[in-house]
């Protein structure tokens, strides 16, 4: 017993002597190892991010740079592709495709042609503006009123209506376009701009977003204003709207990009190609004018890109509100 005890004591003493050194050595190694690993990981991740950034930017940048090529250069580069649907065959066509980032000669010829010589593209661009601007403005206007109604006083009936809005918002176009078309044909507006405007203006999306935004305004703020003698309209315009300015900007960007991109609605609700927005018309550019297509494409993406550059924070904010993370 005694011997055992002693022996075990000896062992523990021995371990105690050796331990600290070993432990320090061990820990140091682990830290440096971890640091090394982390550094390697950071490098790897940076490379991955750069790779993805290249992939994500490439189409946009390519469209942009190619818009400065002369038409003969575009035909020489991409003729093999786009000439396939061209029956004329007057232009010189190369067999292989030549993807180029930098044009041989920078030329504004395409832009000049688009802007001054072929008005149909500008007309379609103008169509897009005519559709999107009223939709954004009035959808936000209707939605601000409605969200104030939803957020100011709550009740079971309203909760039910709000749920209905969410369900409608989640429905794909394949579902909502059928009722839209039926009402439009009943009202006799199929084929006119109203068929695009009206369903757009009353789309539940902005209502959902703004209501979520407004519900964060503390109820006591309304109460205080009410006690100070403010009427509902005053509370709405002087308190609620100024607080929601950021939210409105976010939603405006999301609504804008959605309708600027629209393809489904014009195809079904419009029958006259004159009224088509540029988003649909761009895909119908015929082979002879393919050299113009890049310039038109750039003109079409300038506006959303500007909004993006100036409003990226709002866009991110909007995405997060939609995600319900910031509730």
């Amino acid at each position, binding site marked *: 017993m005694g011997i055992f005890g002693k022996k075990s004591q000896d062992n523990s003493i021995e371990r105690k002597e050796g331990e600290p050194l070993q432990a320090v050595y061990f820990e140091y190694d682990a830290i440096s190892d971890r640091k090394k690993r982390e550094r390697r990981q950071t490098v790897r991740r940076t490379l991955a991010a750069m790779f993805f950034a290249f992939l994500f930017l490439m189409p946009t940048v390519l469209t942009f740079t190619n818009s400065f090529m002369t038409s003969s250069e575009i035909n020489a580069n991409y003729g093999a*592709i786009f000439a396939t649907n061209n029956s004329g065959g007057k232009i010189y066509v190369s067999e292989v495709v030549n993807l180029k980032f930098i044009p041989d000669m920078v030329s504004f010829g395409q832009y000049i042609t688009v802007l001054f010589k072929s008005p149909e593209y500008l007309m379609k661009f103008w169509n897009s503006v005519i559709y999107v601007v009223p939709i954004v403005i009035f959808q936000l206007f209707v939605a601000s009123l409605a969200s104030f109604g939803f957020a100011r006083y709550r009740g079971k009936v309203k909760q039910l209506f709000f749920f209905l809005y969410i369900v409608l918002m989640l429905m794909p176009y394949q579902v909502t376009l059928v009722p839209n078309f039926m009402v439009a044909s009943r009202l006799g507006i199929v084929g006119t701009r109203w068929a695009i405007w009206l369903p757009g203006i009353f789309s539940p999306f902005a209502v959902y977003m703004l209501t979520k935004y407004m519900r964060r305004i503390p109820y006591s703020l309304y109460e205080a204003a009410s006690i100070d003698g403010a009427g509902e309209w005053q509370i709405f315009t002087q308190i609620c709207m100024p607080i929601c300015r950021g939210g409105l900007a976010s939603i405006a960007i999301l609504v804008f990009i959605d309708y600027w991109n629209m393809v*489904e609605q014009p195809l079904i609700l419009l029958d006259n190609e004159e009224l088509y927005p540029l988003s649909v018309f761009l895909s119908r550019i015929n082979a002879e004018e393919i050299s113009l297509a890049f310039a038109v494409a750039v003109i079409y993406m300038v506006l959303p890109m500007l909004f993006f550059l100036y409003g990226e924070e709002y866009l991110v904010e909007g995405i997060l509100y939609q995600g319900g993370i910031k509730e």
Partner: protein
Amino acid sequence: MSVKTGGKIDRYLKNNAAQARQEKKYRSARFSRWRGRALSWAYLAPSLIGVGLFFVLPFGVVIYYSLINNPVQHDFVGYSNFVRTWENNAFQLAARNTLIFSFAAVPLAVVLSLWLAVIMESRIPLKSTFRTFFLSPMMVPIASVILVWQVLFDYNGLVNAVISRIGIGKVDWLKSYYGPVVIILLFLWKNLGYNMILFMSGLSSVPKDQIEVARLESATETQIFWKIKLRYLSSTIMFVIIMSLINSFKVFREVYLLAGNYPFDSLYTMQHYMNNTFQSLDYQKLSSAAIIMAAFMMVVIGILLLLEDWFGRDLEQ
């Protein structure tokens, strides 16, 4: 009140006046609340009328149309329209394609964007620039970049030039069963940034102390990711799945701009079916197809929400 009467009457009058004042105030407060409530319906009215007129009421008509034989006779035929739609070859093709596309594209979108978010969360340089780059496709109209996509995936396009040099045969991407691959790439290109933003925010809301504790307990980064972060991300993941699903139903846009109204079979989406049915103005088919889709969406989203509840059941947020 200036005349001094007996204390009793005086007190009575005083009390009465106070009570009246109180009552008036109470009544006016109640009245203003009642008025506010009524007014709030007035604020709601434009939107409710619009939504009712353009979405809800006509959806009732859609249900009605799906149950009758034709808009002239109005004979009630039960579910035979649904059977007719369901057995339609074009509908089946469209439904199959759309489902296959969603089942392939949504998981890819979730995993890749989560990976991007993890990359963005680590200590890489130029984070905000990368974020701008990743988010930019969301703002570029699809119609603008479709040309580049055509240059890449045409039969004589760049991708084929590259893979034929490696020794793999050329593929006619848009006119073969590889068509969905092109569309999935376009879908990912457009949607990854959006999902990434959601995941970045989700990752940053994972409680720091839990991660610290896990590190002290010498958990590896992989363990921390799978056992802690992913648990806290469950609601974000569900939302991303729902949004990706909805966006995957919108992919007709891309297909239409790339391949037009009559694409190869593998690219025939639900919206193509709807477009063609719109052209023949077959209200019965349209209505029943819309109802089948709506029911499908509601069931899927309902299941996803239940799953989210189940996954997040022991999390305190």
